């Protein structure tokens, strides 16, 4: 038996997980409309690849990854693209984001799927396939998985951790996935292990999910893998990546490092499963398991297409009449969905119907009494009461000194605060203010650099112009000087006087002669051109042409006269 370690802090909220695992995974019916946001992962925004009116097939690429740290998006079913437009996103702000609106045709017709044997492919190619299949971290952080699948150059990968912790109350999507589709998870973990060349694979599951542990153990045994399936003590947030790494390996990932630099990498179970589907079945990420629970008649886990509007999804669970809100994610870290039109996305692991009875309104915020309870439960050993103080005073530099960016917003501090202070909200506020300032600072620096470059260029151009003018002036002076010299020469030797006087006259005559010659050449050219299509004409046609020519003649004479008059005027 592996020795387990402990992480500091943590809380034990009521798990509320039982109601939603009573039934197996249900396949959600096709909704009448799918709203697929293009930006569903961390990193770059995928570019839309379809237009309104276009027909798409299930699994067809509709948003292409625009850079390495980005992830593709696909049509979840076959149908017609109604629009590519801004729609409300599954985001606490409720602001719109560019989405592809698809009307399903009900046929659910797939694109051509090509199952691949990843062992025969270059690792780089496998990562590309994962990116283009839209495989991202499905634990909720939606970090593109392919970007995590490279070991650090200097440190060999010791442990690969498959995260089945799922510590958030109410949530059971990973639990049910492990119970029903353990084999896929184990095979996906095998892909990750081979890409990372990890020595050991540890599957960490909270010990309140004995069925999942058993199913995973059975699958590992069946496939003949040497993975270790380990039940870890149930304590929120044991499913946090850094916490699970700490519990299973005793390694503490410092703020300044990423886990591969410590020889360990962590993936969610659902991510491993989708990676397996993407490589071995050629199926991109089109759906995910979402727990529908809380204030509903039928709590259950559903395999639901991404882009399904919340309205159609919650109808499956028959929400009770006093439901007044829907939370996305768990009660500790989740946020309220901005409306029933917002779609489910790759980050949606759980939808909790809330009611005043289930989540009674928080008692009003009271002053901090500096009891230190928040510091005791903080799994990252921060001092939330200090950070709160500075965030409240908008002293953001100080919050950074207290390592606010190590905060994972798990909500333990808010959970235990006897003064009901929404600590996490203060930290989120401080973090986004700091980010926005950083963005502004970067923009200011860029503007300064551009301004300086422009000034430099202006100065250079000015200098070049001045130089050009000076050169021209010098040349002029030289020209002026030259005739003066020739005149002085003339004065000294009187034989060439006549020649010099004749020179300007001669030049004029030569010019005139050239003009006359050019005009003569042009006239000859005009005359040499024979009119085409004059052969084989009928008598009537010839007559017509003659008439036209006759009409033209006086006009030509007139224009010649005009030209003469003009030239004579010019001469005057």
């Amino acid at each position: 038996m592996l020795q387990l370690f402990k992480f500091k802090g943590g809380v034990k909220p009521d798990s509320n997980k039982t109601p939603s695992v009573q039934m197996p995974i249900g396949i959600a019916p096709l909704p009448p409309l799918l709203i697929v946001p293009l930006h569903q992962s961390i990193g770059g925004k995928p570019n839309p690849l379809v237009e309104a009116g276009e027909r798409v097939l299930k699994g067809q690429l509709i948003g292409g990854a625009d850079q390495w740290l980005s992830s593709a998006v696909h049509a979840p079913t076959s149908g017609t693209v109604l629009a590519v437009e801004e729609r409300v996103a599954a985001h606490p702000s409720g602001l719109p984001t560019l989405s592809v609106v698809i009307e399903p045709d009900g046929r659910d017709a797939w694109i051509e799927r090509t199952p691949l044997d990843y062992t025969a492919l270059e690792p780089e190619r496998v990562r590309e396939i994962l990116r283009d299949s839209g495989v991202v971290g499905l634990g909720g952080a939606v970090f593109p998985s392919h970007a995590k699948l490279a070991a650090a150059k200097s440190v060999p990968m010791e442990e690969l951790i498959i995260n089945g912790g799922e510590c958030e109350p109410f949530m059971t999507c990973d639990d049910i996935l492990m119970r029903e589709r353990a084999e896929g998870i184990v095979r996906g973990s095998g892909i990750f292990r081979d890409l990372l060349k990890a020595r050991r694979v540890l599957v960490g599951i909270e010990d309140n999910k004995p069925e999942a542990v058993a199913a995973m153990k059975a699958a590992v045994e069946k496939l003949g893998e040497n993975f270790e399936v380990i039940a870890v003590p149930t304590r929120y947030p044991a499913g946090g990546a850094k916490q699970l790494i700490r519990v299973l390996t005793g390694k503490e990932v410092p703020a300044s490092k990423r886990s591969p630099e410590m020889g360990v990498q962590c993936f969610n179970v659902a991510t491993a499963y989708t990676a397996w589907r993407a490589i071995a079945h050629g199926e991109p990420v089109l759906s995910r398991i979402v727990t529908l629970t809380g204030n509903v008649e039928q709590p259950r886990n559903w395999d639901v297409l991404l882009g399904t509007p919340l309205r159609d999804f919650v109808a499956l669970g028959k929400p009770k009449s006093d439901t007044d809100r829907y939370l996305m994610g768990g009660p500790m870290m989740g946020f309220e969905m901005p409306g029933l039109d917002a779609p489910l996305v790759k980050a949606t692991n759980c939808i909790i119907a809330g009611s005043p009875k289930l989540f009674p309104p928080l008692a009003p915020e009271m002053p901090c009494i500096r009891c230190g309870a928040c510091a005791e439960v903080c799994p990252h050993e921060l001092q939330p009461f200090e950070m709160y103080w500075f965030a409240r005073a908008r002293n953001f530099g100080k919050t950074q000194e207290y390592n606010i960016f190590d905060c994972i917003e798990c909500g333990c501090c808010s959970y235990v605060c006897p003064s009901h202070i929404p600590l996490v909200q203060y930290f989120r506020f401080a973090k986004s203010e700091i980010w926005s300032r950083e963005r502004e600072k970067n923009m200011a620096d860029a503007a300064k650099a551009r301004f300086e470059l422009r000034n430099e260029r202006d100065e250079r151009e000015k200098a070049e112009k001045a130089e050009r003018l000076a050169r021209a002036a010098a040349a002029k002076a030289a020209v002026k000087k030259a005739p003066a010299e020739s005149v002085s020469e003339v004065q000294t030797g009187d034989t060439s006087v006549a020649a010099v006087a004749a020179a300007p006259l001669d030049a004029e005559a030569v010019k005139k002669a050239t003009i006359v010659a050019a005009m003569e050449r042009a006239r000859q050219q005009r005359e040499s051109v024979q009119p085409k299509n004059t052969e084989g004409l009928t008598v009537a046609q010839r007559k017509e042409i003659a008439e036209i020519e006759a009409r033209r003649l006086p006009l030509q004479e007139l224009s010649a006269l005009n030209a003469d008059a003009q030239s004579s005027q010019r001469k005057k």
Partner: protein
Amino acid sequence: MLTAILIMALGALVLGAALGFASIKFKVEGNPLVEKIEAILPQTQCGQCGYPGCKPYAEAIADGEAEINLCPPGGMEGVRKLADLLGRDVKPLDAEEKPKQVAIIDEQTCIGCTLCIQACPVDAIVGAAKQMHTIVESLCTGCELCIKPCPVECIRMETISENIDNWKWKYPVIELKRVA
């Protein structure tokens, strides 16, 4: 007596030479205070302070010629930071504080005169003579310098609205409820 004078004179000579050498070797280029002030200024290069750019304004502040409340794009926060740095009193901003804006060219009306291109301090306008011009939004600092030179008044300022990329978590507010 003489030795004492000699020792003192020698000491003065050596130390003076050392100081002279140091002043040449470790000479500070530019005024470090100006750089610090400039880092606080928003670099819009708009000239609303009355100086032709952020650097001249920073120099004027460092010389004590200019007040610290003349920069509207920097806002009250900028004034506060400058006051902190220079140990001066915070003064109310000498203009109205505006939200961040970008310039937008109405491409139907643009005649391609290039006047705005010449006015833009950060080269954020693309175009050529008798060709339509356009503003590279991500580079525009919202300085409004391009508006005046336009002969057909086809440039307008638009406030940058909140979107999902620049959205920020709000300061937590306590809702007040009537109890009685």
